[in-house]
């Protein structure tokens, strides 16, 4: 039983890290009022870039860094259209997803399906990794798992809720006109946090192709970016909840893997539906069951609306 639980949690922490990382980035963008629906594309191009850079350089860290840069660059293109030019955010996001998916398949063509020579392998942290159940899951795997679930959410939580700058960020997402009136640079904050969110998405792609799968193939992101966007809604735009939600969905995928490994009499494609159906249930049910949640978990008031200074 303990073995089973440890195994499940280990797989969950590994697979859920992709969702958590991408969801954390999306929390940043959405808190400042920008719906970035390009996550799926940014993750895809991050994954392809990471595979290429890791092969070329022989180091997974270079791959991660390259993916972060590419994710940020892609998000900068999105933010240029959606924030600077104030074009429709839904359209720009979809366009970014198309661009990312198309470009990643084009540039990753040469390494598609190849097993990567360098990956983020398990590097157990001494002492901590021997804690039963949670030790192997969070400290016995690659060095990115622990930061994704604890360090990054803590940093983002501090930034958003315990600094003056975080207050400004949230003001930009809730009421940009008021923020503008007290001198907060609305457009700059929106632009740079969207770019930072894209860097997270790129990192999530790198984590997917260098630690989870580990290989690059076309269509490997398979909706994880969209699930991450949904998790942000589910998590009420809070970093710790977003990371936790990623872990929860890692667990759902892990149950699917377990089913396949144990030869449950359910076809693999049906088990693979679990994360999508789970996400659907988790964004609909809470709103239906607890009406009071709607307020506490509500989206930033100005989410999705471009800010025009002249319109009052």
């Amino acid at each position, binding site marked *: 039983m303990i073995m089973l639980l440890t195994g499940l949690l280990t797989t969950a922490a590994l697979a859920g890290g992709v969702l958590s990382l991408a969801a954390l980035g999306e929390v940043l963008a959405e808190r400042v009022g920008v719906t970035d*629906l390009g996550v799926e594309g940014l993750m895809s191009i991050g994954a392809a870039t990471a595979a290429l850079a890791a092969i070329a350089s022989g180091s997974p860290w270079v791959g991660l860094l390259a993916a972060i840069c590419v994710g940020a660059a892609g998000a900068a293109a999105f933010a240029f259209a959606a924030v600077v030019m*104030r074009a429709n955010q839904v359209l*720009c996001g*979809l366009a970014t997803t198309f*661009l990312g998916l*198309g470009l990643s*398949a084009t540039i990753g063509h040469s390494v598609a399906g190849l097993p990567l020579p360098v990956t983020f392998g398990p590097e157990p942290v001494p002492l901590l990794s021997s804690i039963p159940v949670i030790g192997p899951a969070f400290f016995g795997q690659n060095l990115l798992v622990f930061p994704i679930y604890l360090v990054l959410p803590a940093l983002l939580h501090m930034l958003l809720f315990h600094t003056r700058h975080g207050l400004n960020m949230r003001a930009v997402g809730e009421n940009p006109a008021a923020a503008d009136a007290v001198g907060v640079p609305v457009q700059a904050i929106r632009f740079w946090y969207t770019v930072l969110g894209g860097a997270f998405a790129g990192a999530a792609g790198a984590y997917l192709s260098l630690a989870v799968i580990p290989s690059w193939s076309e269509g490997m992101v398979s909706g994880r970016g969209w699930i991450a966007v949904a998790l942000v809604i589910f998590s009420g735009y809070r970093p710790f909840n977003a990371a936790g939600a990623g872990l929860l969905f890692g667990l759902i995928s892990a149950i699917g893997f377990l089913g396949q490994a144990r030869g449950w009499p359910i*076809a693999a494609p049906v088990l693979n539906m679990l994360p999508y159906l789970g996400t659907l249930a988790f964004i*609909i049910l809470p709103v239906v069951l607890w009406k009071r949640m709607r307020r506490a978990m509500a989206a930033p008031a100005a989410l999705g609306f471009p800010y025009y200074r002249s319109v009052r």
Partner: protein
Amino acid sequence: MTRFQRFPTAPARLVLAWRAAALVAAALIVGGLLALSGRDVFVLGELVLRSTVGSRFGLEDLALFMTPLVLTGAAVTVTSRIGLWNIGGEGQFYLGAIGAAGVGLYMPGPQIVVLPLMALAAIACGMAWIVVPTLARAYAGVSEIITTLLLNFVAGLLTYWLATGPWRDRVTGALASSGRISDAIPELWGVVHWGFPLSLAIAAGLAAIMTWTSWGYEVRVSGANPGAARYAGMPMRGRVIAVMLLSGALAALAGMFEVAGTVHRLQGGMADNFGYLGIVVAVLARRSCLAVIPAALLMALILDAGIVLQTQQLAATAVLAITGLVLLLIAIGDELAHYRPVAPASSTRSGAAA
């Protein structure tokens, strides 16, 4: 000095001008990238023209691409009229294909009976697929964007499971594909089947409903100004539900046409992004069901050109990247069309008002 001010409306001529500029910019970027990768752009351009509008095969392909695009584009357009986004066209397309294939595979009978039944089964499946997002939107206010989209992946997996499992081809053993369906939509011109004129007629019919019926009027008002619609006592919730179900039915019909007209099997991955490209078509059509037709033509041209590029050792997905680029530039162009030059700010009136 002339000042540019943003107006709430964008005149059609400005939109067209900016979009033309966006398309030219996209063509320049793509051409530039191709030239950088050492390809002769002019030879390639000529090849694209010759194999799209310049030959009978090209024109037939164009019509075959247009058929599903008109329907999935119309599916997104009707929801955009009421201010919603149905991003789940891909999934509803699959469900339509599943419904049609189910009837086609397991129901014997004369073609004249089976084909309409296939269409009805497709429509029923497509509507069933959008029911949960629709009710969640109408009664709980859950954003329909994510819910419709997530179901695309489920539908893709369901299709794959059916095509590799219970419905797999036991005769020829084709990969991830059901057996051949004998009931086919009759052909009209070469490989172009009657689904093509039918889809154009459906788009025109939708345009007529939206423009001339009170139902269409209420949908348009509900989308343009929800507050006014509620104040006028229009049944907003009912309209939202009806429009979403209609949207699901349209996308599903595209799936049925593809099964019965072009592919003649249920295949894993057969939706081939038609559902997602429907979003692009709807954006290009700017909420007009009639404009869906030229928009689908443009999209079909891009897809057709993509096939040519594929023969030139470019990945098939390059066309997806090109579509994304076009969509991004057009989104910017549409926003820029809201800006018009106005009289200098130094005039006395605006000075007094400020």
